[in-house]
């Protein structure tokens, strides 16, 4: 078993509260790992440790078996670890390609000296990545404000993919979507998996998890409460792990 991304005994404390306690987990290339747990179980803190929002108090993060230091979200991005949060972090007032290139805009020289935005290249490159993921957005010049929830999710995903994500972390990717759009996003996740990307998904929707995930990791009160392969388990068993084994014994 060779993980692309791995955490070893990672721990994060906030004052007296240990939000993530000695958690070791990993995800392989071309694998979807679902991170489950009740509210406050430490899922979000765990992914924020991986994506560089928080710095771990103990433990280490390995990429391709090598220890990496992630001091900030920028470091994580530089390592190919992309995170799509529930709120998607899109600038609604900007258009599709401006969002895909946000913070990393393509420029060209004007008058031979000044760097100006190169809209043509950004639009063309965006079109390519959207086509590759089979995403249909009528005009790349539409502002995000005018797009549907699913289209926005697709733009956020395209952005990560364009920037060569090796590991893609998705926080509740289907939570705010209608049924038809949920399907589309799940298909998108499958297609990313087939392209060899390691994916970690946080979700509350058991259906989504069993639809796309290969492996399930359950968190409870900051610790890893269990790890099961999707093909070997049932939703009932997973729910048992989430709420606590005592309940299951009864």
């Amino acid at each position, binding site marked *: 078993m060779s993980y692309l991304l791995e955490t070893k005994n990672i721990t994060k404390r906030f004052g007296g509260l240990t939000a993530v306690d000695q958690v070791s987990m990993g995800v392989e290339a071309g694998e979807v790992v679902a991170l489950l747990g009740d509210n406050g179980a430490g899922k979000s803190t765990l992914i924020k440790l991986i994506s560089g929002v928080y710095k771990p108090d103990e433990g280490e993060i390995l990429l391709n078996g090598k220890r990496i230091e992630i001091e900030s*979200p920028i470091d994580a991005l530089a390592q190919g670890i992309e995170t799509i*949060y529930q709120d998607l972090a899109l*600038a609604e*007032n*900007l258009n599709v390609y401006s969002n895909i290139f*946000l913070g990393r805009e393509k420029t060209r020289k004007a008058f031979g000296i000044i*760097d*100006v935005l190169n809209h043509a290249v950004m639009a063309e490159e965006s079109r390519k990545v959207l086509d590759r993921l089979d995403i249909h957005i009528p005009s790349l010049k539409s502002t995000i404000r*005018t797009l549907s929830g699913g289209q926005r999710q697709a733009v956020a995903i395209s952005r990560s993919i364009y920037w060569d994500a090796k590991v893609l972390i998705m926080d509740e990717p289907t939570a705010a979507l209608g049924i038809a759009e949920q399907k589309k996003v799940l298909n998108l996740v499958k297609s990313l998996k087939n392209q060899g990307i390691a994916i970690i998904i946080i979700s509350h929707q058991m259906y989504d998890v069993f639809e796309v995930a290969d492996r399930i990791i359950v968190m409870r009160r900051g610790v890893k409460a269990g790890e099961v392969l999707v093909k070997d388990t049932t939703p009932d068993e997973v729910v048992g792990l989430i709420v606590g084994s005592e309940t299951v014994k009864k």
Partner: protein
Amino acid sequence: MNTLTANGKKALLAKLGSRWVLVFIVLELVFFSLSTTGFLSIDTAQMILFYGTEVFLLGTAELFVIITGGIDLSVGFVMGFATVIASKLMATFVNLGLSPLESVLASSILTLLIGLLPGLMNGWLVARLKVPAFIATFSMLGITRGFSELLLAGSPAKNLPALAGNIGNGYLLFITKRGGISFFNRPEVPRGEYVWAIVPVIVVLGFVFIAVFAFILNRTKFGQHIYAIGGNKEAAERAGINVRRDLIKVYMISSLFASLAGLAYTFKYITGKADAGSGMLLNGIAAVVIGGASMNGGSGSVWRTVLGCLVIAILETGLRIMNLQTFTTYIVIGFILIMAVIVDQLFLNSKRAEG
């Protein structure tokens, strides 16, 4: 079919919504040409631009901050501060024996540099210490006003080089009745003979700065990041944009333009006054809002702000020609500002539909 017509209506409303400033300018021109004599003339047009220079500069100052979702209440008194600094420096340099040109150049550059300080502090407070822009810039209003009055110690600066006034009230081109043309210098003509003066120098200088910063806003990464910060600050941060640094720059740009307005004032009126821009804050903010920018941030353009400034400049000059006092201007601009916001709300949905 129904949705199609609805969309058509929405698109039409959106078009009207974005064009109402132009409609309003035409209405103003019609009103003033009916109520005064000879309003539609090159002379009046130049007068509008000449007296409006400070409004154009302050509107641009305010625009940058408003796009990021902030506000800069200090621009009026930063402008006054700049007039005081510039006039004091000019007088000092002349006393020290520098030539008029050296005095004017050195004091202008120094004024612009010193003028960056209020913006630096505003930006630092807003970006670093998360002080609400309203409070940070409101405090700066008081601070700059106090320093201006301290420096003046009750009396306006005197003995400014005549060159300052020549720049401030100069024109690019003069044409005499006999067809003589001269650049920059008013030609000698027999007493009473009319000379056409074309394009005030101060307006050209102002618009050079506005054009440069319009380019920065529209075409560069930094400009794009300003819009991104206004649209979704957290998204900008997560995309790796240095939001703090960019915000500080934005408040410094605001102060720079307020100081430019101060310089324009000093050159035009050859004096420095702490309250030179006291009534100008309303104009600056009104121009941006009339120009269609949202106070929530994320939208606004330099050229539409320039149109907003034009609405105010035409109004001020028109009312001045009609011999109405300044307070009328404040009242009318206040009402137009309210109207602009209402129109913005009315057209908000149609704008969104348009995208």
